[in-house]
């Protein structure tokens, strides 16, 4: 009996030792530094008295959401707030399910420039050729990537991250968009195993296959070879990591994702998939319209890219006006046609064509929703600053708020088969929540909190946008300017240089090789003025305005009349 007790004791010690050894052998990347957040004092959070959008079209008014240990434990209007909960008074706030980024390269480092390959370019190593279907995104994932915080600030809490390059790029997985806590291994952020194999029509640089047609040939060959190897299984199949990695896809156990960032690539990807007898998920197309028929017929799941084309203002093509500075003759005007932008009909037609193309891209999501084609949204190739604005553009172009929310939550959850984990604000789901101060797709609405695995992230007020900064950027006069105009002394055109010493400006004008010193050089706002003396002893006064690298103004004091001068700043 005693021996048994001792044995039990020993066994327990052995197990404990083994467990701790196992724990220590796990990687601790990301979770050990000083900068790593401490674990919160409580893992229980209650959002009280909030408007809760449980799922698209299902709303609870004045409800409380309780979160514990990374899961939602209760949602309802009469839920008690647990004693240990951090209480967030969410009166007047709205709670949505966290967004799922259905295709992302956040935390996936761009490949370093490979060393110059000096071997036979016709048969490079497969890694160099981009044939890496066995590459696992989790192995190189960097949870400290700034992109992750940017995605989270836009409401994304879960992302399907994928390897970046190569024709068989590798395998993707679902990751929670938060920093690992102290002592937590980075691998703990992944909420799934491998869920995808990603293919791209991408040529390798300088080696075989260097072209899209080469990449597709290699892709087809690899798949066909893996198929034959499966058929011949049992015979002495040699070790072939590529064929092994493709087996799951061929068997239909692992979804096959094909990146296509324009409709033409989409057509190519769909045909190649058909020929390889694989069912693809198409990721990255902005305007999916030309593919709609095929997508519906073959029931191809689609992930649209949030990277919309930049908007174009109606007056985007107007040249800087040729302004007449105060004090000069109002009649003085340049009358030449500088380029097509000075022709109103050309300007209008060109701008209209572009704006139509942009509007089509914006409306692609609405068109899919109307056609009842399920789709999700992916953020790869989208500027961090554009995430929320572009979402709002989709809605402005006709996508209903419910459909937009579904594309961010329930649709990707269905696509990834994680409906029990994510996509709605319901008991048992991961505590992935977005808390806003208004309707999600209204321009004035701000995201206040984002909860990822129950960890509360307060989203700071957005810093000034780039355009604000540009508006207030100081006008710079310094530089070398090339001008056109009949000054001085009958010489048409030359250069002038403006330089700055401390607070004062000075400069020289050079015409036909002769220098003229500038005096009274002054910059007031965007108005630049200076004087110089001609060989004839007259004082010429130059007055004008700077817009970017263009200066438009007049010269007075030459032959008693004001003449026009236009200058552009030379680069460098």
């Amino acid at each position, binding site marked *: 009996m005693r021996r048994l007790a001792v044995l039990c004791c020993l066994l327990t010690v052995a197990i404990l030792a083994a467990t701790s050894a196992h724990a220590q052998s796990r990687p601790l990347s990301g979770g050990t530094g000083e900068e790593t957040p401490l674990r919160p004092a409580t893992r229980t959070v209650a959002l009280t008295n909030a408007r809760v959008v449980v799922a698209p079209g299902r709303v609870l008014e004045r409800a409380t959401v309780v979160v514990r240990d990374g899961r939602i434990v209760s949602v309802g209007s009469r839920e008690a707030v647990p004693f240990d909960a951090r209480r967030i008074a969410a009166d007047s706030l709205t709670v949505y399910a966290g967004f799922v980024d259905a295709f992302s390269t956040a935390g996936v480092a761009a490949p370093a420039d490979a060393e110059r390959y000096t071997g036979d370019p016709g048969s490079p190593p497969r890694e160099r050729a981009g044939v890496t279907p066995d590459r696992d995104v989790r192995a190189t994932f960097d949870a400290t990537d700034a992109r992750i915080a940017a995605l989270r600030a836009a409401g994304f809490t879960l992302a399907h991250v994928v390897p970046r390059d190569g024709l068989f790029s590798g395998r993707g997985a679902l990751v929670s968009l938060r920093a690992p806590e102290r002592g937590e291994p980075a691998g703990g952020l992944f909420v799934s195993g491998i869920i995808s194999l990603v293919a791209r029509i991408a040529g390798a640089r300088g080696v075989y296959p260097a072209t899209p047609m080469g990449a597709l040939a290699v892709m087809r060959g690899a798949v066909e070879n893996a198929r*034959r190897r499966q058929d011949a299984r049992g015979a002495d199949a040699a070790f072939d990591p590529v064929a092994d990695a493709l087996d799951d896809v061929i068997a239909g156990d692992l979804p096959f994702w094909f990146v296509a960032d324009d409709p033409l690539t989409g057509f190519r990807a769909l045909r190649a998939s058909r020929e390889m007898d694989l069912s693809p998920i198409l990721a990255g197309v902005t305007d999916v319209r030309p593919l709609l028929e095929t997508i519906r017929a073959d029931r191809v799941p689609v992930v649209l890219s949030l990277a919309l084309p930049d908007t174009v203002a109606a007056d985007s093509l107007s040249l800087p006006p040729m302004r007449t500075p105060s004090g000069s003759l109002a009649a003085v005007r340049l009358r030449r046609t500088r380029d097509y932008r000075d022709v109103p009909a050309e300007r209008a037609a060109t701008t209209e064509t572009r704006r139509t193309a942009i509007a089509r891209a914006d409306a692609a999501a609405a068109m899919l929703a109307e056609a009842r084609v399920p789709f999700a949204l992916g953020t790869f190739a989208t500027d961090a600053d554009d995430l929320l604005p572009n979402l709002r553009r989709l809605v402005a172009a006709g996508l209903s708020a419910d459909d937009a929310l579904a594309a961010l939550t329930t649709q990707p959850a269905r696509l990834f088969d994680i409906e029990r984990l994510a996509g709605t604000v319901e008991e048992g789901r991961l505590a992935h929540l977005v808390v806003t101060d208004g309707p999600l797709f209204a321009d004035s609405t701000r995201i206040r909190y984002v909860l990822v695995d129950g960890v509360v992230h307060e989203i700071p007020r957005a810093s000034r946008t780039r355009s604000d900064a540009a508006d207030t950027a100081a006008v710079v006069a310094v530089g070398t300017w090339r001008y056109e105009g009949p000054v001085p002394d009958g010489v048409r055109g030359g250069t002038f240089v403006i330089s700055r010493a401390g607070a004062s400006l000075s400069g020289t004008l050079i015409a036909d090789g002769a220098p003229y010193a500038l005096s009274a050089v002054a910059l007031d706002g965007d108005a630049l003025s200076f004087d110089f003396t001609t060989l004839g002893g007259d004082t010429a006064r130059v007055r004008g305005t700077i817009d970017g690298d263009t200066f438009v103004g007049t010269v007075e004091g030459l032959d008693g009349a004001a003449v026009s001068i236009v200058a552009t700043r030379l680069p460098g």
Partner: protein
Amino acid sequence: MMHRLLLLAALVGVASTAQTPSDLPPPNARGSLLIRGATVHTITQGTLERADVLVRDGRIAAVGTGLTAPAGVRTVDGTGRHLMPGIIDAHSHLALSSVNEATNPVVAEVQMRDVVDPTDVGIYRALAGGVTTIHVMHGSANPIGGENETLKLRWGTLDPDGLLFEGAPRTIKFALGENPTRVHGQGRGLRPATRMGVDQTIREAFTEARIYRAEQEAARRDRRPLPPYNRRMETLADVLAGDVLVHAHSYRADEMLALLQTFRDFGIDRLTLQHANEAFKIAPEIAAFGAGASVFSDWWAYKFEVYYSSAYNAAILTRNGVRASLNSDDDGMIRTLYHEAAKTQRYGGLTDDEALALITIHPAWQLGIDDRVGSIEVGKDADLALFSADPLSIYARVDMTVVDGVVRFDAARDGDDQRLVVDPSEAVPLVRLSTGHAADACLRDAF
């Protein structure tokens, strides 16, 4: 009555508005049309004055006089105009996203059909030159390039498959001489560096493919697992079996004779020599082999191996019984292939039919599609070009181009902006003023 008037106004309005590519029917559309009273160059059955051609559902249904249009079929007045089969360009690199997979001397596994770009506005320009079928080829960087593709210019589709000439035989690009030796030999220090190296590369590839196919067949016979799959060898084995027509970029008489010998040794008999500037020196030998030749009318001296050339090349080949064609190999020249054909009347005195055959039925034969296109005969595809005057006249211009009975170019309705896809990041569409000449197009992506 009022409604009818409105309807009529609407119809007239539609007929007279400028056409944009989005108005055009889908690529699978097959049109019906009656062209009346034109001078019809049938190519194979002489020239018919004031004849009618009836097109039904994309095929030529009748050629004769006094034909009437069935109800609902549009009639085009061809009085004073000339109708010929749509022009066929046997050598083009138009509408492709990439041309050369130049990294390996043998890339038989790549296929141009994977990189067809139906949005290339050059397609519309070629249609405006009466061209209806093009043979888009792999470049000339490698002794054995990829598989080419025969396309119909069904402008207006975004689906690259919409352009495929369904049922056209597979063809493949070979290349001899300076281009492959420059890319691999001089460029990389690899074989082939010489003309004999090119020949040896081809012979070794054929031999390897022969062994590959033999091993495959032996495995099937003995019910053993098949050896590893190799697309490069699969294609080459198909070439050896005669299932893929070879189009070999070649210039010099000696290298062409050597290739004929290599092909005899491996039992391949369908061959078209592309460029073939010195073919006039060995025309009887080419005729005896049964090979075709697709040449320029008067384009040479852009590199050393093309100095010894003659504007009489096409005529000499024709007189020696070689089925010769004239090609453009150029996105610009493709618009005026009928001028190229006319040059053979100045240099060599070919008859009208002989000259027009160089851009119609002969290239069709070289591509293995002469049962479908290349002449105006009942039952053939309704690929037609309607000219304002005799197409061999310098004053002729193309009024209308028809593919599968569908009008895809109409000079009377030529819209300003023919872009199929607008890139909103461009303020104005990028226009390439120079498309480069033949020698460059052939080596696109090679360096």
